[in-house]
């Protein structure tokens, strides 16, 4: 696989001093607790892709698309690494290579969609558009920042995205219950 966009970072990824200061600012890490979900972890993965030590697969691609560009890591990176710019290039490359992953980006259930275009006009990131030829709503997975506006605005319930960063409401409720039990004890 050719990393057309990502390869320009090959000699710059080492600017990350791996201090881990991004951990506490990453929502995804706070939910999952896995270092591989942190900005530092993802940068290491991308280095692995460029060096050939890792082969791209769906799991890896899914992880990269979980980042929804809140840019808290950019703001707090002690070495000022352009983290989300690097992730954007990685997303473009992975899509070009044909990886059909969604991460936290929004999707559309075509059977439910009435093509009302409300989601298109609601999307502040200009990630949603109407594909006239195929009569469907298209989501630009690089532009989508998983804000959820389209999901909230869609009158047909057609726009959807992963709930709670990968947790279902049921799982989230269980976690809250366990937390409250812990507090009560």
């Amino acid at each position, binding site marked *: 696989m050719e990393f057309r966009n990502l390869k320009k970072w090959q000699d710059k990824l080492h600017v990350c001093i791996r201090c881990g200061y991004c951990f506490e600012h990453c929502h995804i890490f706070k939910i999952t607790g896995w270092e591989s979900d942190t900005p530092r972890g993802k940068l290491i993965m991308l280095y692995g892709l460029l060096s050939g030590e890792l082969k791209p*697969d769906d799991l890896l691609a899914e992880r990269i698309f979980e980042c929804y560009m809140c840019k808290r890591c950019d703001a707090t990176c002690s070495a000022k690494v352009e983290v989300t710019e690097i992730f954007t290039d990685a997303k473009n490359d992975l899509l070009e290579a044909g990886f059909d992953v969604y991460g936290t980006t929004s999707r559309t259930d075509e059977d439910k969609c009435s093509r009302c275009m409300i989601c298109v006009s609601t999307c502040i990131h200009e990630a949603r558009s109407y594909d006239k030829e195929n009569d469907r709503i298209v989501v630009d997975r690089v532009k989508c920042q998983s804000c959820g506006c389209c999901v909230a605005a869609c009158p047909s319930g057609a726009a959807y995205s992963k709930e709670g960063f990968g947790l279902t409401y049921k799982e989230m409720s269980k976690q809250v219950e366990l937390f409250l039990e812990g507090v009560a004890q």
Partner: protein
Amino acid sequence: MARVDIDKLKRIVGEENVRNNPEVCYVYGSDSSVHEAFAWAVVRPETKEQVQKIVRYANSEKIPIIPRGSGSGMSGQAVPVKGGIVLDMKRMNRILEINLKDCYCRVEAGVVDDDLNRALKPYGVFYPVAPASSRVATIGGEIANNASGVRSVKYGAVRDSLLGLEVVMADGTLVKLGCCNRVEASGYQLDRLMVGSEGTLGIIVEAILKFVPIPKYRCLGVANFNKLEEAGNAIAAIMSSGAQPSLLELMDNVAITAVNKTMDMGLPDVEAILMFEADGMVKEAVDHEIEKMKKLCEEQNGFGIKYSYDAKERTKLFAGRKKLFPALSKYKELYSCTSLADDMAVPYSKMTEMARMIHDIADRNNVIMTAYGHCGSGCMHTKILMKANEKGQWEDAKRAVSEIYENVISLGGTTSAEHGIGLSKAPAFKKEKSDSLKYMKAIKRALDPNNILNPGKMMDAPDDWVKATKLRYNVK
């Protein structure tokens, strides 16, 4: 590669807490050091019983097991150099007890330093170890590396705040070491043996720590010096005067240039800046300490001396030092900031000599090096800035590191003050401790006969640190 029974591990900690897919094993195969390797599996226990079961399994199958906090270590301690199971301890992050009457707290190994201090703050006390990485460093990792930080000059290293431990030994047995009392003379101090053992003797699962009152007053001063030697003399004068600084930091001109260049901090163009701080519950006492240190700096031609009690002003005065490490990583295009010979300690009276030697060694070996650090505790940091993508630079770095340590030893210093040995510093450590290595190896053999606990580190690490693992740079 030995086969890891993933299903068995999942039965112990739950399916969601075991991963062995390549990208996860790759991420958990590196830390803040220059080294990288692949883990065979990553497991996240939540209880000490789970740790015991995992260790028992690893011991029966002779699978390496590498405990890991946040992976902020700089010497490769958490890199699975021989593969194996990486034990991510971050889920064991409960603060179990804050006992104000008996002045101790009891925490699990995965508690993050800053989180502990946030919990202690309402009670007017703090855990004072304060490594620069306190926002990610876990207590277990700090103990395993005998970490310290800017306030070690007054409050010491982890070993000075540690009262007791619970440790899972190599056969899976859970043992209590030390106790919650301030003093103990009941036999071998095995809790101390675990301090700085870097996960090679046991898996730390719980710790009993001392805390101290948060000082009511804190005053930070800054002095500039046109000659590095004068700053060095001021350090020695302060420390031998009986003054009790709570922080005493040095920045050399490379460090000053780096901060000015990348952060636009406007620090003065001098050979050295010294930062000194005093804290306490009585303002007059803090005044006394600050005046004493100010006078000693002036006697050594220190100038432009400023100091402040105000928290915001102190933050501003310290900003240059605080931002130094990241500033160094942006010092020069395509240059990497590497942690190699980066935390030696030398006697106070030798600090200037050491700093000069570091500059000479850098010039001789075609790399850029800075000298800064917690000089009040004798700790001097260097970072080697080099084109890490060029093969030849690693030979340069290797020579520079070797020369640094020859000088450290000849000056009566020690290889590591606070970052630990791991892989990068093993050759120098082995030379320094040549007369006691056989006892260390005997202890390791006795406690871990199957050599499963973080194998291949410290005395068992390769002599050539550059070839110890694949380097985490695109070396051409």
